């Protein structure tokens, strides 16, 4: 009778494999914790108020910027007074990204992958002009880009008139205090292809727009980008794992293909899971260094989404297989409930196996040892599954705990967020490699030794007519006792 590798591999080889995988896992965590920087960083940019001197601000190709040749004349802070009669379109809030540091004109690198813009409005409280809790704000936003070439001019990238709900409250309504206004998401660039970006925002007032806004003093833009160092580490991980997983997957499928029966559901699931991981591993990020690929954010979401869906359904099938019940319908439940459910199922499986173990003492010693070994190994894999699942969920939850980027602790070396990202990512790869290796059909034959009560055992453990004889022998074992 043929089983899978997890049943037939010698203890020595198995422990060697497990140790190797554990080392790889630790390395993944350490890479994230010690080498990679935080996944993303942000720049808080204060909008410069430029004065548009054109007739009605309709010139689409005129760009306002605060630094460099031809920078605009900025409006004085005190534009808000009763005697200046400036028109709303004459004030252009300009944001030039990124802001310089250490006297160096920084530019974006394509390694930084994506850019997210979040807008915040500072509105000063004035008892004469109070504002509503939720106000509609209309923004005429135009985005331009420029390359590092000093001769280059700003070229339009995107423009739109957007409406956002400004959610503002104030705890202590005192003069000169600011309202607490929630940040508004403004734009998301899926690829950071150009060197510099420029955002021009006007707050138009035609047809009664923006009238309930109160006294705006400042507009702040927070530009969030992925860190180049994080991308580099991430892409290296992908580059390493991609060929390995692809290789193991091919080997696994070859093994399954060689079987005389058609593949079981679990084997199909494992193949799908491997393929989803390979798709996730595919280091497409290299292409963004050469081409403008604005769909990368969406593609990343899709890849991640497919992987999550496959992984969760696989775990259900995997746990379900050993209980001989199909739980695929339940695959869509949320992560927390999912984890509880999974833990419960694994606990049931353990109980189920323990109950079946009661049969073992009546068997011959060799067979009993064999089954005990199989049960032991299987338990180990189940615990690994549970660990992997909990780490995934914990990683997911931990991501929501704000990690202070403003921490003042100078000597904190370990990057927890990055460590978790690389660690969990490495864990998925290692776990699936382990599954593909261990659940691949084995060539080895388990010797059936003759014994006194071998006849009864033969009957007991002979495959049921409906069962393919290459199924997991543990499944057969469980099923057999269930029939009895």
């Amino acid at each position, binding site marked *: 009778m043929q089983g899978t590798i997890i049943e037939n591999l010698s203890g020595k080889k198995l422990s060697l494999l497990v140790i190797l995988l554990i080392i790889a896992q630790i390395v993944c965590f350490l890479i994230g914790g010690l080498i990679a920087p935080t996944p993303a960083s942000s720049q808080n940019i204060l909008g410069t108020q430029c004065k548009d001197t054109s007739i009605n601000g309709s010139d689409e190709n005129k760009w306002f910027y605060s630094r460099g040749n031809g920078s605009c004349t900025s409006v004085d802070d005190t534009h808000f007074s009763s005697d200046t009669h400036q028109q709303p379109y004459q004030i252009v809030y300009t944001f030039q990204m990124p802001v310089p540091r250490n006297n160096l004109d920084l530019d974006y690198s394509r390694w930084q992958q994506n850019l*997210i813009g979040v807008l915040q409005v500072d509105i000063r409280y004035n008892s004469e002009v109070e504002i509503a809790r939720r106000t509609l704000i209309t923004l005429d936003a135009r985005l331009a880009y420029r390359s590092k070439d000093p001769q280059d001019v700003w070229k339009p990238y995107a423009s739109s008139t957007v409406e956002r709900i400004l959610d503002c409250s104030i705890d202590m309504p005192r003069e000169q205090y600011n309202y607490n206004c929630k940040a508004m998401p403004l734009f998301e660039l899926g690829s950071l292809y150009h060197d510099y970006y420029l955002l021009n925002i006007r707050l138009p007032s035609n047809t009664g727009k923006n009238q309930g806004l109160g006294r705006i003093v400042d507009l702040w833009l927070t530009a969030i980008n992925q860190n180049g160092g994080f991308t580099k580490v991430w892409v290296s991980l992908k580059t390493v794992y991609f060929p390995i997983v692809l290789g193991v997957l091919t080997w696994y499928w070859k093994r399954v293909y060689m079987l005389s029966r058609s593949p079981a559901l679990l084997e199909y699931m494992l193949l799908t899971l491997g393929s989803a991981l390979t798709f996730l591993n595919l280091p497409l990020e290299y292409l963004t260094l050469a081409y403008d690929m604005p769909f990368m954010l969406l593609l990343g979401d899709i890849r991640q989404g497919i992987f999550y869906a496959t992984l969760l359904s696989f775990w259900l099938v995997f746990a379900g297989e050993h209980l001989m019940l199909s739980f695929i319908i339940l695959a869509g439940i949320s992560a927390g409930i999912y984890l509880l459910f999974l833990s419960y199922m694994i606990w049931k499986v353990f109980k189920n196996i323990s109950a079946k173990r009661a049969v073992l003492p009546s068997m011959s010693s060799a067979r009993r040892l064999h089954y005990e070994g199989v049960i032991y190994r299987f338990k180990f894999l189940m615990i690994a599954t549970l660990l992997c699942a909990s780490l995934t969920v914990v990683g997911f939850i931990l991501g929501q705990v704000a990690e202070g980027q403003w921490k003042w602790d100078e000597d904190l070396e370990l990057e927890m967020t990055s460590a978790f990202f690389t660690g969990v990512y490495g864990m998925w790869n290692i776990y699936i490699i382990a599954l593909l290796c261990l659940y691949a059909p084995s060539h080895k034959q388990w010797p059936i030794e003759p014994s006194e009560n071998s006849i009864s055992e033969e009957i007991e453990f002979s495959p049921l007519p409906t069962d393919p004889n290459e199924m997991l022998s543990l499944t057969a074992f469980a099923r057999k006792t269930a029939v009895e």
Partner: protein
Amino acid sequence: MTIRGDGLLVILRSLLIVVVVATASTVPGTWINLGLRHFPQLEAAQSMETFDASASEICTSLRGLSQGQGKLCQLSVDHMSSVTKGAKYGIAECQHQFRDRRWNCSTVHDENVFGPILRIASRETAFVHAITAAGVVYSISRSCRDGQLSSCGCSRSSRPRDLNRDWIWGGCGDNLEYGYKFTQSFVDVREREGSFKKGSREQGRSLMNLHNNEAGRRAVIKRSKVTCKCHGVSGSCSLITCWQQLTSFREIGDFLLDKYDGATEVKVNRRGRLSMRDPRFSVPTANDLVYLDDSPNYCLPNDTLGSLGTQGRLCNRTSSGMDGCNLLCCGRGYNTQKSTIRERCECKFHWCCYVECKTCVKNIDIHTCK
């Protein structure tokens, strides 16, 4: 000159103040002077490279800087216009917060800015040190975020080897942290210049100033708000980025005024550290203000102290607080005058740039201290 620390009698304290004035006058004025006057040369300095030849010329023309501050000015001359702005914020906020008190943060026309009053190690001095340090942190951070001050630091290490690579690899640190660090070196350097005898009064004064400067700097960070944005897979919160949002300077001023009201009296001990004068109170934290001497009452004009007195100040007849006529006029009584004023009222705001108001005429009584 030797000054014995704790052993002095209270009667001698006023004499001591004169002594301190004499020692401190070797460095005339205070850097806060930058906020009081207009320095047109600083506008050009904004885009100036460090170690520029004309930088030293500009820095020597800025009256009120100490020796160390002068050196820092030459190293980072572009920061000076932000420092000026910060000092302005500080003075304006001080005058707003103290508008109703006997000492109203009045300035004089020399480099001492507030006159000899800052020689007294009083609560008021503590507040002035804190609010001006806060002003500089605030203004430097704002200028960095504005992009107008291009030399703001980037990573946590002070001078990165290859800035562009550092920025691509791990991004830049927060500007607020940079503002804090620059202010720390610029404002505090003055207190570290002299060498004082351990446990001496001068050393105590220097420790007090350092403590209050730190309290001011921390007030800006303490009052700033943290805003976060989730940007994970499909907008999920698997990744979150947070940043510090500066609050309005008024809020920082109000916070520090609270600290002023709850300031702790300390003394310098023989080991050269500050200790509580009254051990029953709780030990002040780095966010609290400390002072060494009680404040004078500021009721009468006194040239030695630099007090202008409260004669002629407007007071509120019905108030029982500091701005009430009873307290503000120190019991001397007040004159009442009938007056008609015109003021803006029923204002309507039009985005972006003007307010439409009516003019209201009011008859009010104006009370001034005798």
